């Protein structure tokens, strides 16, 4: 973990609620896709945890959904605004631990960290299958970006307005994959975890956080191997250790 200022250098609205933000600064603390950063916003006491969507040496890319007042403030910030940031938090996804054929499974804004993961897998010559679920076609984002990595994308929407009508779990059979990298809201994580088709996988969780770096025990969950802090020992847990 490092504490460092990041400067907003670019922002773009991707759909009604989701923004793409690029921030410039020292990203050296990021070691794996699926890690997150914790941003301090003027006038708010707690930091806001946001997954790393993608990064290079000195630019960090975030996809942020306006969920409340803090994310709204973040997405309304002007280019040039600087944010005190804790960087390189959490364990992230471990590509080396995937066996067999992998699918990236994203629900809503949970698709954000999967992009950086897909990019790194693609670079390693292993563009994964990607299954994404949204409420509606209007909520999608980054479909083109995933496609440009060479990923085979399947899409489900709850209202059927784009892709297959249904849930992301409905897409899994057609991928023929047996290992998943999964990020999304908790009910979706649970549903995917319950798919027998996936014999293994890594699941990224969300929890309300006090610190985001392991000090306060605010974000603890039970696992088969004892208590874990989502912020420090997670946010990514492997299939076999998860208890609901």
């Amino acid at each position: 973990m490092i504490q460092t200022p990041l400067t907003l250098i670019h922002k773009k609205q991707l759909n009604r609620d989701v923004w793409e933000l690029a921030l410039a600064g020292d990203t050296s603390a990021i070691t794996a896709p699926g890690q997150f950063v914790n941003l301090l916003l003027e006038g708010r006491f707690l930091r806001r945890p946001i997954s790393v969507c993608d990064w290079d040496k000195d630019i960090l890319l975030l996809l942020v959904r306006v969920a409340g007042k803090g994310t709204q403030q973040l997405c309304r910030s002007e280019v040039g605004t600087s944010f005190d940031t804790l960087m390189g938090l959490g364990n992230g996804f471990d590509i080396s631990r995937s066996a067999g054929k992998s699918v990236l499974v994203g629900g809503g804004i949970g698709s954000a960290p999967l992009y950086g993961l897909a990019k790194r897998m693609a670079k390693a010559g292993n563009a994964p299958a990607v299954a994404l679920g949204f409420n509606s076609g209007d909520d999608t984002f980054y479909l083109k970006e995933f496609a440009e990595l060479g990923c085979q994308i399947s899409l489900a929407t709850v209202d059927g307005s784009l892709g297959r009508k249904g849930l992301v779990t409905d897409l899994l059979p057609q991928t023929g994959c047996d290992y998943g990298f999964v990020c999304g809201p908790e009910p979706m994580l649970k549903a995917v975890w319950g798919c027998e088709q996936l014999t293994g996988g890594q699941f990224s969780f969300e929890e309300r956080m006090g610190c985001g770096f392991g000090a306060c025990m605010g974000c603890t969950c039970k696992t088969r191997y004892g208590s874990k802090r989502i912020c420090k020992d997670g946010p990514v847990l492997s299939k076999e250790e998860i208890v609901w």
Partner: protein
Amino acid sequence: MVDLSVSLAGVSLKNPVIPASGTFGYGREFAECYDLNLLGSFSFKGTTADPRFGNPTPRIAETPSGMLNAVGLQNPGIDAVIAQELPNMAELFHGPLIANIGGFSVEEYVENCRKIDQCPQVGIIEVNISCPNLHCGGKNFGSDPKSAAEVTAAVKDVTHKPVFMKLSPNVTDIAEIARACEDAGADGVSLINTLLGMRIDLKRRKPLLANKTGGLSGPALLPVAVRMVYEVYEAVSIPIIGMGGVSCAEDVCELMLAGATAVEVGAANLRDPMACKKIVEELGGVCERLGVSHIRALTGGAH
């Protein structure tokens, strides 16, 4: 150069800045950010007899200039703390540590203190009779002078280390409780613990925290802490570790002027892992501007 050293019931600290229990874990995460030896001491996470998972999540909610927590004393239990964490902490911090002790019965407090008494790394025992996130038959030991005194007397019997009773702000008269602790033999008092609060999730129409209520900490708490330290200073003659909402060196001085001998910093560590380091570094300058050459001269200065 301002002399920042203070003495707490005979234990010398190089400065009055002490990370507060529950906001600093066992120091490990912060030791990645700075050398803990610049601190006066640190109070490690509240320890109970048995290992505890704590409360279900969500355990954290934001409030204006503060936060609620309902961690519920998650810790690996006193034996694991003594066997694994204490040696570790002693490597990271070479001065006397403050052991924060929880409990659900007088017997449990006594047992925990008896065990901690054997640990040379511990300079002070801080007995938390005020955790708002535990429901042991309603009230905690800190909400009533009699039970506060009972715990005090019982733990004093089993340890020679200085005992600081950590008091709850959720009471009508904190000075009365402090007096009861002093009369029962406490070497000092620590105050304040968190103020009981609640936030409600408008969409779900339920309390945000799984535990419903949680403890308020952070800057919002500062004026309440200053008032209570001031009141307790007039009521007792044992030293006070002040805390509640401290986020900068000026706040440390404000609590000392109110009557604190040393000051703990809690939620500020969560918001900014470098908070205590910054406070220590700024403290000398603030004292100079206030015209004091020994920081201990501030204690009680506003009375």
